[in-house]
């Protein structure tokens, strides 16, 4: 099932994604890479939610930073100090 999500991200990467310059994303890894990782780690449904949430967070008012799909989970965010640097 997760192949569907991964396929869609690859379609994005090879079409509209090409038009966006590298360094468009304020996070590391980039949103599309995050989506790929999220689908691989969490499956289609949860991966999709995490990926959408990530894109929503990648807005001009957020601060970016290092944010890995493997660490994604529902609910309360860990405080700054507990997060890996």
């Amino acid at each position: 099932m997760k192949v569907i999500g991964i396929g869609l991200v690859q379609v994005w990467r090879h079409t509209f994604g090409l038009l966006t310059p590298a360094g468009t994303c304020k996070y590391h890894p980039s949103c599309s890479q995050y989506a790929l990782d999220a689908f691989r780690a969490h499956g289609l449904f949860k991966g999709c939610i995490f990926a959408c949430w990530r894109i929503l967070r990648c807005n001009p008012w957020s601060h970016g930073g290092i944010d890995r799909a493997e660490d994604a989970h529902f609910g309360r965010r860990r405080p700054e100090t507990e997060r890996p640097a």
Partner: protein
Amino acid sequence: MIAQILAFTNPLRPLEHFLERILIWLHESVGFSWAWSIVALTVLVRIVLVPVTVKQIHSMQNLQAHAPEMKALQQKWKHDKQRQNEELMKFYRENKINPAASCLPIVLQIPIFISLFYVLRHFKATTLVEYGGSVDWLHLVDITEPVKDGWGPLLLVIYVASQLSSSYFMSTTMQGAQRILLMVLPVLFVPFIINFPVGLMVYWLTTNLWTTGQGLVTRRLMPKPEPPDKRSSRTPAKDEPPASGNGSPAASAKTAAAPTRKPVAGPPKRRKRNPGGGSTKR
């Protein structure tokens, strides 16, 4: 094939209806022709996005102030892209920089584009029958026909040119092969674009012109020197425990006095108009 892919995007129905409503309103109430309604719709969409753009310009100015340090970081990790990114993120965090880039504004444009594609695809069969009017644009093209018909190819050439100019402004931070790739891509998209309705091209053309204009304005605003770090004067003093008995009354008096020192708003200053009348708007 593209239509089949787009057929999966039915959740966009509400957006499609919304865009159609705006188009009808622009046509019926404001009195634009259908083609000019699309132009106006594009301008409306971009006006809604102006706060986002302003925020990005501010971030960019902030980034420029730190450019030398960032360049040093990039140089240091130039063989390890991953590490370079991580170090850069760390640097942003340490210096409280908000990177100018973000994905959401770009991703948001795609649903609008796809919805407009749908609206125009059944335009002749539904909306036009109900409301009538002309589908010509500048007496050259029919907005519901595919780009390859009639004068469409001319529009396509103008579109590619506008895409190049807007990419030029979008890619100011990139260099070398990457930038060239970004410039070549619009040309590679041409075989797909020729089957799109002309109206979609009108939308894309307008949005590119807007991006270019925005780029020109931003370029004029950019050389501004970086203002010093803003420190909020509204920090509540009462949260801090008084260090010693004699220091705190003065501090509290200071904070109490601070709001009263607000400058009284005077009449707005008038600026001299440019006698040449040269405006940056087009």
